[in-house]
């Protein structure tokens, strides 16, 4: 009993979808909220050293927005506040350069950002002080590794006196910083180079390491069980990067071209596996996208991909012109840095205000009580003089004007029952699907034959050229073949006297028909060959 006529829709003429050719385009470029988020980053390039040496590791300080980049024999620390005003000629952004005796690896900030540690090719691990105004100085040298100490990390939790490191000598050590002594040491933790490690976000004594022996092992410093780990997971490829996801229960591992998510609490159960990169995935990091967290992965194939691990879906991917080795995302969620193997760093700095953030609002203000809105003063004369140009205020219910139906030219003509004009206008557009739709609609209205007989010579040429082009297309052949027959029959006289142009169309049509007959014949031959096979297969 509803007034359904009020909402009666207007249907444009559209061909039934069996007549519509399958679109070849893989995906329409629909803008998702995620892609619009990533588009708000303004990208720039940075060459920390002019030597074109690979940037093996990048790290953001947890609170003071410093960025450390390891390349060649030094770790360069940038102040990310000034990164945006980066000038390639003069380099004021460089906050500090940490000298290391050999190739530097894996800079890591302490949770308060006051200290930074880095590994080195010769196995030494150094801890530096980062005072604001003075040059950095080496505080501690930790020597235990005999080969390159590739993995150095402070615990994520508030545990300022601990550090862990691992290296190519398959040694895993947890250090006590003040005394420079190892607290927990596992020689031969893996059977190959350890190239990845991550501290747990929920416990200061739990770590995960990944090695080129394809395994990922979880260590608990509280359990002194010799060389055996708490948990061992086989990734299946040499592990390049491991990462605890924020819950601490899931571990993401990258090796080969796959990223795998494991449930640690459930005893190392595989949860999901992503194979979207074409080459080896080199680094993983977490990124804050609006309210969600994404797993960013970079690969030698030059792609940065954003993976939503709550929905197990790749939400965005970006292409860079060089193989990527490292990635970092600032804790504030405003800077994204990737490091390449040719010494360039590509940065994205969030400039534009994200339109979604307006709606969401930042966490800082979520707890503050919103101020009561100032009621509109009715005494104000302007209130009474509101006119058409008055903007709706927040909370007003907006009654929208019913949207005007946009109709194409042929649809408008069809609505006015100008059938021939509609046919001519759609023939001029040369869009096959629209032409087919109008032809079908004319059939439904029983007006097609009349239209054909009413076309004048120029319009007939249009129709003939359309038919002679498309008559043997499989998806409209049945319709157009019959139509061609009728057109030739009804307008035989006009075609004969229509001049050379008409003759060309007819000739085209004839050659097309001849071609089609040939095709059909060869298809029949093939069918003849296949059908005995099918009969045999059916038995």
């Amino acid at each position, binding site marked *: *009993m*509803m*007034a*359904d*006529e*009020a909402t*009666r*829709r*207007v*249907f444009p003429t*559209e061909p*039934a*979808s*069996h007549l519509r050719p399958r679109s070849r385009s893989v995906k329409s470029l629909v803008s998702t909220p995620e892609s619009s988020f990533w588009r708000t980053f303004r990208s720039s390039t940075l060459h920390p050293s002019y030597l074109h040496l690979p940037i093996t590791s990048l790290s953001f300080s947890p609170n003071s927005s410093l960025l450390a980049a390891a390349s060649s024999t030094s770790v360069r620390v940038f102040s990310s506040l000034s990164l945006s005003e980066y000038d390639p000629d003069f380099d004021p952004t460089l906050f500090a350069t940490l000298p290391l005796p050999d190739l530097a690896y894996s800079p890591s900030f302490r949770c308060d950002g006051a200290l930074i540690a880095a590994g080195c090719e010769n196995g030494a691990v150094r801890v530096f002080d980062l005072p604001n105004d003075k040059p950095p100085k080496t505080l501690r040298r930790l020597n235990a590794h005999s080969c390159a100490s590739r993995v150095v990390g402070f615990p994520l939790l508030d545990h300022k006196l601990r550090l862990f490191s691992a290296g190519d000598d398959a040694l895993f050590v947890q250090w006590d910083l003040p005394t420079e002594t190892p607290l927990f040491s596992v020689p031969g933790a893996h059977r190959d180079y350890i190239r990845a490690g991550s501290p747990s976000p929920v416990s200061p004594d739990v770590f995960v390491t990944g090695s080129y022996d394809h395994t990922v092992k979880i260590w608990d410093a509280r359990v002194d069980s010799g060389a055996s780990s708490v948990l061992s997971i086989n990734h299946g490829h040499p592990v390049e990067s491991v990462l605890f996801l924020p819950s601490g229960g899931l571990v993401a591992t990258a090796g080969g071209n796959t990223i795998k998510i494991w449930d640690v609490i459930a005893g190392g159960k595989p949860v999901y596996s992503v194979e979207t990169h074409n080459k080896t995935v080199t680094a993983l990091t977490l990124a804050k996208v609006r309210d969600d967290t994404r797993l960013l992965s970079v690969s030698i194939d030059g792609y940065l991909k954003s993976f939503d691990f709550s*929905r197990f*879906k790749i939400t965005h991917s970006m292409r860079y012109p060089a193989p990527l080795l490292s990635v970092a995302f600032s804790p504030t969620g405003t800077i994204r840095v990737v490091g390449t193997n040719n010494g360039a760093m590509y940065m994205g700095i969030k400039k534009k205000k994200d339109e979604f953030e307006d709606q969401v609002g930042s966490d800082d203000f979520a707890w503050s009580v919103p101020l009561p809105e100032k009621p509109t003063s009715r005494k104000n004369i302007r209130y009474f003089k509101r006119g058409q140009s008055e903007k709706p205020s927040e909370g007003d219910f907006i009654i929208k004007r019913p949207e005007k139906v946009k109709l194409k030219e042929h649809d408008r003509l069809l*609505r006015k029952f100008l059938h021939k004009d509609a046919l001519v206008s759609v023939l001029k557009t040369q869009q096959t699907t629209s032409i087919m739709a109008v*032809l*079908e609609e*004319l*059939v*439904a*209205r*029983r007006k*097609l*034959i009349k239209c054909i007989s009413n076309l004048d010579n120029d319009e007939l040429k249009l129709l003939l050229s359309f038919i002679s082009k498309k008559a043997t297309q499989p998806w409209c052949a049945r*319709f157009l073949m*019959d*139509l061609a027959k*009728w057109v030739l029959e009804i307008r035989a006289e006009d075609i004969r006297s229509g001049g050379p142009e008409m003759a060309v169309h007819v000739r085209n049509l004839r050659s097309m028909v001849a071609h089609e007959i040939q095709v059909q014949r060869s298809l029949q031959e093939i069918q003849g060959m296949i059908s005995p096979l099918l009969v045999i297969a059916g038995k």
Partner: protein
Amino acid sequence: MIVGGQSLVTSPPVFSHDGKKLLVCTGCTVSVFSTTTGMLITELEGHTERVTSIVVVPVAGTVGTKFSNYCWTASLDGMIFYWDFSTPDLLKKVNVQLPVHSFVIPNILSASLGRSDKASQNLYAFISVEDANKEVENGKHLHGSIQIYDLTNSTRAGGVLAETHKPETLAVSKSGEFVGIKKKQQLNIWRVPNKNLKSVNMKKLKLHHTRTLSCLAFHPTKCIVAAGDVSGRILIWRGFGKMRHSQDGGGKMKIDMGDRPGVRGEDDADSCSTWHWHSSEIKFLMFSSDEAYLFSGAKEGVIVVWQLDMGNKTYKPNIGSPLMYFTDSPDPSLSCVSCEDNQIHLLRMPSMDIIKSISGIKPPLILSELQGDRSRVTIGCDRSIGFVALPTKDYRIQFFSLLDGTDISHLQVIERNYDPVDETTVFISLVEVSDDGSMMSTVEEKLPEMGIGGLISLKFWIRGSHTGQYTLSTIIYEPHNNAGVSDMAFCPGRSMAVSTSYCGNFKVWVNNSSFIHSGDEIQEKGGWRCQSVSSYKEIPMTAAAFSGDGSVLAVAAETKITLWDPLNNVLVAIIGDSLGPIRRLAFVGSSEYIMSFSSGTKADLVVWNISNLSRHWSYKLLVEDICCTRSETRVAVLALLSSSDKSISAGKDGMVLVFDVENPIPVSTWFVKKAKGGRLSFINNKLGEATDGKLLLAYINGEHNYVLFDPSNVKEQEDLIPKSARRPQSYAHDENVSHGYASIYGELPSFDLTKARSSDSIPFVSSKRPWETIFSGSSHALPPLSKLCSPFLESLLEKAEKQTVLSQ
């Protein structure tokens, strides 16, 4: 017993004096709807035939609060009733004795006013009656006549005002000054005198036109009359009747022949102007209450608003159906328009927005140029909750609840703009709803023009969260290449369907849709796919049915029934020949029987036994529909009676028989009207407290009127009451089914009863040579020769399909 499905648009509806209620003629009753909610308030029951006109007693000022809800109704049963429709009470009956087709009370305003001060003034009504028995005069069949009737004294006032070929609709001006009819190519108008109303002193005024007129309307105050003709022209006569009506005074006035633009001959009018926009017959004309506009409507479904002075026009399109009547209410902001698709739209007046729609069951789809069985438009039926799915002309499906008698929802099946003027070239030819209502399939056909561009497509729908809400699951274009789909059936308890086609194969469709997580939303992937294709000797497949447990699929290959294993696509058995091509199949509950009927010249109804693949029993009956219960062994059959059968009285062209499948003797029988195109269905009884799981039998006739009843209940009554009284009982029920048969023709004649009774007893299939069997039997039981003679001779003369009957 539930009766419903009456047309709301047989006569114009009338608003109550305050515009809060709308009185609509629905068959033998008058339904009172609320204009604010669009819901039924009450019904006035009393007439025994179709109600044709309603006149609401107007209320002037504070005087008539007592009469605020009073109305007069006239019906084809020759009665005029006076009602208080608020209670509702029947206050007065006036017997006119002739079927009243239209009636108006011109002086009702003054009379009702006068009623309060002096009760002397009589109430006169102009009635348009049909007199079928009138003798032919001068070779003219003048069936209709216009008469004046004194309602106060219940007497005819004077003679006949006018005679017409068929009863015409009367029009009256608002002031009650003029009454008019259209009569072929002319208008007849009478001025109603204030007192002394006698037919002798009524002067008739004629206005002529060159085409047949279709409707007329009077201006509320001025001497302007508008008439529409069959070609869509509107004629406006201004200043009519000045001379003729003033001649009563005595002085002869000269007719000024010059300066009368558009007026024909000696017609008595100042001017006549013609407007032309509509392309077909004008269905209604109505002057607006502010006297500035004229509304007109026709088949296009567009209300045209003419500015009376200038002839400028504005339009109200998108009503979506051919228009029938336009009624304005005392409330100037409300009016209503009746559409041919059995809907009444209430309009908010100046803007003409549709506020509410009162919709009845959609009328059947009539496909004129299509012939035979091929274009049989079937309606779907959901047994579990008792609604039917009816294909409508505007490419939709209406879901109509039989138990509540209300329209549930509409579903757009074909995405195409509907234009009422177009002939039907695209239509929904088949609707099939699965037993539990969770799945539905529709078949739509697009007819080719000169062999170009025909298309048949099959759509599968899945029920959403609400009743009658379906979402499209799969479209299959050309399911059987070019050939039409003859029947569809859903497998109970499984997502499986079968479609049969005239090209000689049938396809089993399965829904193996898997739900995949693609991004945020869960998408349905797959949908309905063809599982297997089979054919039997390339014979056209005409019907299909699944057994109750879904393990056996029966497909009719013209005269044979083939039984298949639907899962493995293996032919299991073939059951022998029926006489003609089988139209429908049905498994009888969980028993071993399957029922089939065929139509055409060799119509029959056969019950087959599956276990021994033989014919169990059969009738030579022209059957329209069969339906079986899923659990019991009862079957209901709707049979058409051949016109040669003398036992059938006029109007009754079918009967509903309920059988127990084991026994060829029907358990009960009812005669019904308009059985052609009717449908039967058992539906679960969920109404009221009687939820005892008993099945109701729903019978929907060819005009989509329907009745629901419990067949077993009626049988109990049959057992209780004496046999003589039994028949009227069932007939009384039958009257409710259709249109008050007994009211016209009185009680049924007795021979009808005996004949019908005997037909219950021993029916058998007549062989090719009935004269061999008709006289067989023991001699003491042989009926008298006089009774045998006529069937014998008939059997010699014709071989028409009919049930030969041997009386005991």
